[in-house]
């Protein structure tokens, strides 16, 4: 059962990823991206990371994709077809990417990971909450605070950048 779900999700991810980067309609690309992100969330559920999957759904699928769609609306027409890329560029990029993928995959297959299947992972909400706000071993309070400042800075930065310049 899990195997079937995995293969469905994996094929969705690969196919829609490829469609995201190849489709000529920009809004469709955004929708394909959304599908990829949802499938990724499915992966997280499959691996038992329920909280992370929820975050993926709300932040990525709910937030970022909406933001991207908004910006598409602001900058282009919905039915506009994107300009085609030159074949030369496509070819060289494809060769480079294929080479990279082959190297990586062969390395992964060669490596021989030692899985630890005997320990059951604990992804309960209380464990996440405790870890995120503790500072001992396995505690993440510092990155947590840092990222909150980063978010604030990004918010201000985005406002300043996107603000219409005052006419003088």
């Amino acid at each position: 059962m899990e195997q079937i779900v995995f293969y469905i999700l994996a094929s969705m991810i690969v196919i829609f990823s490829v469609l995201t980067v190849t489709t000529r309609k920009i809004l469709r690309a955004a929708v394909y991206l959304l599908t990829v992100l949802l499938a990724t969330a499915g992966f997280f559920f499959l691996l038992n990371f329920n909280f992370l999957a929820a975050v993926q759904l709300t932040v990525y699928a709910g937030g970022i994709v909406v933001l991207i769609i908004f910006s598409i609306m602001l900058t282009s027409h919905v039915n506009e077809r994107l300009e085609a890329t030159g074949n030369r560029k496509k070819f060289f990029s494809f060769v480079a990417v294929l080479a990279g993928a082959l190297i990586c995959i062969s390395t992964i297959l060669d490596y021989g990971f030692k899985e630890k299947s005997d320990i059951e992972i604990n992804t309960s909400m209380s464990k996440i909450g405790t870890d995120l706000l503790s500072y001992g071993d396995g505690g993440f309070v510092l990155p947590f605070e840092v990222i909150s400042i980063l978010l604030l800075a990004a918010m201000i930065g985005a406002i300043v950048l996107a603000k219409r310049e005052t006419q003088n």
Partner: protein
Amino acid sequence: MEGYTFTLLIPLILFATFLLIGLAGGKLKPIISGITGVVSLSVVSIISYITAYDYFFVNGKVDGVFGKIIVYDAEWLRFTDSLFIKMGILLDPISVMMLVVISTVSLMVHIYSLGYMHNEGGFSRYYSFLSLFTFAMMGLVISTNIFQTYIFWELVGVSSYLLIGFYYNRPSAVAAAKKAFIVTRFADLGFLIGILLLSSLTGTFDFVELTNVNGSAITAGSSVLFMGLSSMTWALILVFIGCAGKSAMFPLHIWLPDAMEGPTPVSALIHAATMVVAGVYLVARLFPLYALSAPVALEMIAYVGAFTSMFAAIIACTQTDIKRVLAFSTISQIGIMMVGLGVSGYAAETGLGFTASMFHLFTHAMFKALLFLGAGAVIHAVHTNEISGMGGLRKYLPVTHITFLVACLAISGIPPFSGFFSKDEILVAVKEKDSFLFYFESIVSGLSAFYMFRLYFGIFWNRNTTYEHTPHEAGMSMKIPLIILAILAAVTGFIPFSEFVTSDGIPFISHIHWDIAIPATIVGLIGITAAFIFYKKESDLSDKAAASLGGFYNTVHKKFYIDEIYIFVTKKIIFNMVSTPVAWFDRNVVDGTMNGIASVTNFVSEKIKRFQSGQLQQYAFVMVTGMIIIIALIFYFLKN
């Protein structure tokens, strides 16, 4: 030593005055800066007189010897434990005498300038430079060590430069200032090397140690020979080169006549009475060294002095610019002082030359300052420097006339004026040492009488020139210094100098040697008579005489073409043969290399800037490809 610390005020007051007038001068009324200068100089003079009185009559003499008193000596720069420079005040007979000379002449010049410079621009600037000069000169004479001397030596050079170039909008003045600075600076190179050599031989800069007769400095360096002379002799000769530059000895005299471009009171102060005798002063300061460890150098000084005195006296007879006559006369008189030093021995009676030389320095300062100030009064009245534009002025300028006459009589060595006594002593000293030099100097003294009276008759008698503006006597501020200096020039000869200033500090009694004094006076009178015949009345006698001498006269008139020789050497030989190729090399090879590097860089960047296409994806592509290649290399080649 206790009791003399107030002498510190001398340089401090002068420096403060310089700063005050120099910085605030632009905002003050010109006359206020002038009066500030005069007042501060008066205070300094009073301090100097008190010092002199105290030194010579009260405290200075210990066991019958005028010793050296270190009033104050502070470490100024320390390089290593053995190499350090001090700043301080040294009092001994010659420095105290110089204090009196400088403050007196400087005060007279300050007062005189109130009138003379009245209508000139830059009054405040003028007074601040005068204060700077006086400060530097005072610092020079009271130096405790040779390096301090050197520092102030350069400072007087700078202030001299500034004052010669006072009329900076006049090209000739600027050229003269540059010439003076470059020539003296060139000579100071010798001085500097001399100092370094001297200090490395003796291990000290300090005058007291250097001139200590029983100390180690006297014998240091006498064994090391270079070209037949001991290294100490070389060091002292190099120091003398510096002295020759400052004191305008042949062949470094060329700057002094041109320096007359400066305001006349400046010529009186700097280029007659004080700065130019700094060379004489320095030789006197190091006299025990010269006398005891380098008699060859001393002999050289005597001959250089003698030659210069004759040479300058001959030129002085032909010049028509009255200030230039006085300039050459100054050179000649300083030459005589050098002769006096050069023939002197050390200690007591044999040191008569030293005493006489200092005596002559003293009297010369008075009468030569007087001559310059008198000439300034004349120029002020008739607005020209040329003797041909003058004549018959005795009716218009009675005070100037009388004081000028006094000065002329003094320089000619006619008793009882001051020059008679000092010159007599020098001649006595010369006679004892070298009879050839004695006759030589007698002729010089006759010549000086001749050219001075040529000037005197030319200005005040001769034809009755008609003037556009009737010349009139200058104001009180100019008359008073003339009168004071005339009195000094007349009576200072009666000071028994040998009882105060001697080579080793032990006073002795000197008498007038009538067997020498009378012939010398007669020679002087002959010179005066000759001048009387030639120039008393308007006549063509002088022109005829000049014509009969022909080429020789022209050569002399052109100052023996020394300037032309210098120009030839510098322009034709140094500039054309050396500087031009060097400049070519610099412009084409050195600059060319640099320009070549720049243009190659430029060319290459022009080519490779295409890599920066601005295409973001191109960059990303290169980066990804590179990464993939590196990873591939790591996995497939380095791993095994």
